[in-house]
């Protein structure tokens, strides 16, 4: 009984803080106030100041976690809605997403290796360009730490959202299709919201790229253990 009360309390606190942070973000839509990050920071500070362990938080948190599976399945919905655009532009999409997914994983792993980081960190780094619910799954299958992967995913998203426009100029990516695919396959949902500023086509391309990067990333992730 107390377990259920603790769970309900934790879930309601998480929802309330998230709604509050969402409200704040609507007033000040800066990438530094992305609700997921601010909610995480507030909750971590609360847990530390009241000496609550992560295991205790998970009594409620695991109920929220249980919605992650259906949320990944739900990505089929935008993919289906965009199926005509997907079919029409299949070549640039597959070229961009394929190379993007490979570059994202390989460069993350290679740089971590060159910087002398340990194996667990390298494995946690690899799925960072994939949308968080899938990245967590891939990370744990590879033998990484999902919590750390989520932090990397968040940072990768913020870079796309903050520096995306400068980077696109720097790399001379001018087409709407290219902009959308670049942001969607490197910076998932946060990149996609930036891509929406370049118009409907960029937005569609970006959301399709995000869903496809998740699928390709999961496939590549499942193949990696076969080689090492």
């Amino acid at each position, binding site marked *: 009984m107390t377990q259920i009360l603790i769970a309900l309390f934790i879930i309601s606190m998480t929802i309330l803080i998230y709604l509050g942070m969402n409200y704040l973000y609507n007033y000040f839509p800066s990438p530094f106030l992305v609700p997921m990050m601010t909610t995480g920071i507030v909750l971590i500070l609360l847990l530390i100041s009241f000496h609550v362990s*992560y295991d205790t938080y998970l009594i409620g*948190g695991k109920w929220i976690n249980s919605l992650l599976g259906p949320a990944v399945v739900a990505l089929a919905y935008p993919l289906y809605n965009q199926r005509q655009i997907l079919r029409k532009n299949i070549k640039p999409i597959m070229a961009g997403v394929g190379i993007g997914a490979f570059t994202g994983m390989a460069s*993350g792993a290679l740089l971590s290796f060159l910087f002398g*980081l340990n194996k667990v*960190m390298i494995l946690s780094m690899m799925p960072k360009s994939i949308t968080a619910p899938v990245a967590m799954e891939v990370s744990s299958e590879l033998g990484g730490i999902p*919590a750390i992967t989520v932090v990397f995913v968040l940072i990768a998203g913020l870079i796309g959202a903050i520096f995306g426009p400068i980077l696109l100029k720097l790399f001379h990516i001018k087409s709407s299709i290219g902009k959308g695919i670049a942001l969607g396959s490197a910076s998932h949902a946060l990149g996609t919201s930036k891509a929406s500023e370049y118009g409907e086509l960029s937005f569609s391309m970006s959301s399709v790229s995000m869903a496809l990067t998740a699928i390709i990333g*999961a496939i590549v992730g499942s193949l990696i253990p076969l080689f090492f």
Partner: protein
Amino acid sequence: MNILRILAQIAILFAFSFIGGLLHTYLHIPLPGSIIGLILLFLALCANVFSVKWINQGAGFLLAFLPFLFIPTLIGVINYPELLSNKGFLLLIVVVISTIITIGAAGRASQYSENKSKRRQEEK
């Protein structure tokens, strides 16, 4: 009732994820169960054996609150205070450089392929 419909549709998405999990375990498909569920749902929608009306509201709801769903996992970093050290700084640099390279590679590759197929169409 709208809420009931959303809940029922989330239950359907749950079922896809669950079936994906079973396929993962018993057929030894190496993909995560939820990804298998995603692919199954996409194929079912494309083959018209499944109507998009059966999942659109539930899917829309979950995707709207997607960032909320990974907060419990994100908070798990509380057990890794070493991320605030020099090592954490190195990791940050890796994420930054790798993301910049990825944006460049994905964008250039798609733009190249797009221009190539455009040129081919013009030649015809």
